[in-house]
């Protein structure tokens, strides 16, 4: 695929991620912090997010698996995840965390387990999308083009 096509694909794909609510304005804020002196800023932040989230999801799975669930701990983990997803603009993950915290307050193990599933799904979706987006970026750069600024 030639550069122009790749760039168009990138622009369309990015737009769809915003349209479908996977990403919000905060992601755009991060993109604006990237420049020639820090060309990998967004990828780096998102990678940190992936690392942190995977650990948090493991911790959450373990915590909800206990005989006696420590809801304070569960809530603390979800709060962290809500924060970091919010910081990178992963809107659907963040929204899933908000629902999750409500059930933590109610100390409802079943509902929490369902929420965890939901959060895992949303995370998996947005991770896929972002990986695809970054791959597109890479293809553009490798084809000698510039990555268009969207939004």
């Amino acid at each position, binding site marked *: 695929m030639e550069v122009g096509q790749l760039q168009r694909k990138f622009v369309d794909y990015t737009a769809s991620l915003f349209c479908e609510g996977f990403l919000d304005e905060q992601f755009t804020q991060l993109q604006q912090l990237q420049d020639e002196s820090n060309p990998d800023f967004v990828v*780096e932040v998102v990678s*940190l997010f992936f690392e942190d989230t995977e650990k948090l999801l493991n911790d959450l799975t373990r915590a909800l698996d206990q005989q006696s669930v420590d809801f304070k701990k569960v809530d603390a983990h979800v709060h962290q995840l809500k924060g970091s997803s919010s*910081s990178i603009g992963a809107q659907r993950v963040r929204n899933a965390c908000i629902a999750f915290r409500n059930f933590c307050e109610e100390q409802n193990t079943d509902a929490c387990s369902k929420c965890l599933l939901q959060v895992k799904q949303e995370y998996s979706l947005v991770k896929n999308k972002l990986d695809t987006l970054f791959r597109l970026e890479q293809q553009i750069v490798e084809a000698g083009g510039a990555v268009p600024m969207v939004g």
Partner: protein
Amino acid sequence: MARRVSCGSEELHVLAVDDSNVDRKVIERLLRISSCKVTAVDSGSRALQYLGLDGEKNSVGFDGLKVNLIMTDYSMPGMTGYELLKKIKQKSSALREIPVVIMSSEKILARIDRCLEEGAEEFLMKPVKLSDVKRLKSFILRGEGDEHGEKQTQKRKLEDDPLSASSPLSSSASSLSGNLSPSPPPSPSSTLQPLSKRTRL
């Protein structure tokens, strides 16, 4: 009205405190892009260590760079941002004149009030934006110039209109120079003076 030249060439040095890897990276970038020097630590206790307030004579990590602003997350394990704020603002603290800004993803009014009462300069909602940092920076730098002693009557909080200017602060009655923590040598060039304490309501 002579403006002190100090803010011209001098960069603000900000100590950022946040246990989140993601947020630390973002705040670091926001500050660097705004031409600030940044030291980022992941806990309140590390922040105190850095500031030389942890009681240890030769604090590990204190590299002699004067801190002009502290930005700390509120919710952190161990020591919260509020507890860190209290320690910094203690009467006996040599660094109580350093402005402290609290950041939080939760808009809890009681929390905000508590922080402002304890001496926080401002309470920022997360995610922090570039416009927040730019406004903060000019606010801190502006605290330098006015010699007519206009008193600050109201602390800013939440999402204020980014275009509204804060009134300049009165110049400091007490300077910090004699009271810095033991180890570091003073910076060679004249650095920014600390802001004066605002009138508490």
